[in-house]
């Protein structure tokens, strides 16, 4: 179980600046340097941040919120996802601004501290449970103490405690044929009878965040800063893994989530900048033949997939999950079982270049 451990230990170094409107002392306080867990949420850092700035804050009620380059950050999105989405070229440390006043109620839904974050988490977990098990009775029937223990394990980044409680939920895991094949090879004596019967699901909870850019770029730092949440599409849709002879890959999952980007694959291929697509394309689409020519400045479509593009549409430039850029041919079941967040959702960030 290595990958989940890496996921839980993942962190974003933050350099948190107090917004100038709230600085009442001279000289202004230095920024707070805080290591934020990827799987955590920004408002949970309040107890760590407040001590740095409490002496300079103007009097009044504190409602913490953050912005990155002027964009208020949605507090219910895990920190790691915000970073992957808004910082395609990773900025280390990540410079964000903290506010304790002037909560932007027109952009952000209200947050009343840790409790709001907890309920948002539990609600996501409930939704994930429904997707995987067909009902959310397990989450609804959790005892108060189990619920608290689970939440605290997330707050404290304690994977062991989390697994102890979450295993009681008996959430189905995604059927991972690839992994079981590997297991059979490496372990001659897999004692299957000792393992409790594990329910399997074909439905994966996914939250997809799509950043659209209008200009092409070679380097990630050329991607313009996000100044509005309108540039980001949020797609909350489960992916149903289709049991076929071939392996269901991440590429296949994206085709389901963003069908408009993968129009007719028998005629053309999707260009994915910087990703070695050749094998993925050959494996995932048997229909593509080298005889078909795409209307693409006369270039032969399938011998060089990198050169293909859908003439009037969009292309995926970047995919990030837990800060990683996985290859598209990776088995989606592995991704679903290993890169998920504590709310059992797979949060995927995608950057799409659109032709204007």
């Amino acid at each position, binding site marked *: 179980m290595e990958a989940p451990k890496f996921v839980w230990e993942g962190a974003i170094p933050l350099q948190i600046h107090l917004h100038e409107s709230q600085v009442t002392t001279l000289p202004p306080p230095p920024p707070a340097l805080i290591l934020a867990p990827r799987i955590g949420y920004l408002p949970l850092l309040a107890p760590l941040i407040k001590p740095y700035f409490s002496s300079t804050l103007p009097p009044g009620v504190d409602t913490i919120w953050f912005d990155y380059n002027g964009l208020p950050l949605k507090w219910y999105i895990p920190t790691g996802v915000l970073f992957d989405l808004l910082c395609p070229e990773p900025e280390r440390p990540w410079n964000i601004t903290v506010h304790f006043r002037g909560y932007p*109620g*027109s952009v952000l*839904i*209200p947050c009343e501290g840790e409790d*709001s974050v907890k*309920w*948002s988490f539990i*609600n996501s977990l409930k*939704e994930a449970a*429904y*997707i995987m098990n067909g009902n959310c009775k397990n989450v609804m029937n959790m005892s108060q103490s189990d619920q608290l223990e689970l939440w605290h394990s997330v707050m404290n980044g304690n994977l062991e405690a989390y697994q102890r409680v979450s295993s009681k939920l008996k959430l189905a895991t995604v059927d991972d044929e690839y992994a079981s094949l590997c297991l059979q090879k490496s372990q001659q004596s897999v004692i299957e009878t000792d393992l409790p019967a594990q329910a399997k699901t074909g439905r994966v*909870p996914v939250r997809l965040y*799509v950043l*659209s850019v*209008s200009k092409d770029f070679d380097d990630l730092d050329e991607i313009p800063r996000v100044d509005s949440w*309108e*540039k980001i*599409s*949020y*797609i*909350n*849709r*489960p992916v149903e893994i289709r049991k076929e002879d071939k392996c269901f890959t991440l590429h296949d999952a994206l085709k389901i989530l963003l069908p*408009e980007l993968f129009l007719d694959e028998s005629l053309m291929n999707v260009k994915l900048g910087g990703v070695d697509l050749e094998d993925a394309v050959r494996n995932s689409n048997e229909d593509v033949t080298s005889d078909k020519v795409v209307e693409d400045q006369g270039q032969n479509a399938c011998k060089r997939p990198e050169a293909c593009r859908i003439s009037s549409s*969009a292309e995926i430039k970047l995919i990030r999950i837990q800060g990683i850029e996985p290859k598209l041919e990776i088995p989606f079941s592995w991704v679903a079982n290993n890169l998920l967040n504590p709310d059992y959702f797979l949060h995927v960030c995608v950057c*799409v270049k*659109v032709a*204007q």
Partner: protein
Amino acid sequence: MDVLHWDGTLSAKDFRIGAFAFAQKWESCNLAFPPWSWLPCPKHPWLAPPEEEGYLSLEKICISRPNEEEDIDQISQIDTGEEETCCSRNEDVLDDATLVQSNHHELHYCDFHIVYSSTFRVPVLYFRAYCSDGRPLPLDEIEKELPACASKELSKKWTFITQEIHN
């Protein structure tokens, strides 16, 4: 549709049909209220939203203190209309409550959206209550605004309202 064996879920296509039927019924039964609009879901900023994917929207509803009996009748009518065309999850069911002006003589408004949930395969009612200056209303104030009959009827099913955003 075989009602006896129906598991209570809807396909996206059936949601659209039901939504239109509901909107039509609403218009014929609720002359005091503006009609629901069907808005396409803008999936991506660069793409024209597909006609099939959309949601029902009813926004900026503000009811100045009216005749209470009148409202109660309208609410029960809405219930029957809804049952025939939609099936909502119990946890998030919120009656199309009529908002009554608060004691502070400050006008409160509410936006309603009926959105299809691909997770639960049912329609979900989202609502957002706010003051005339756009400030969101806290949950306890929203609960106070509900007419007494609605609160009583729904007190069992209504264990909590979930705070969430939709696509």
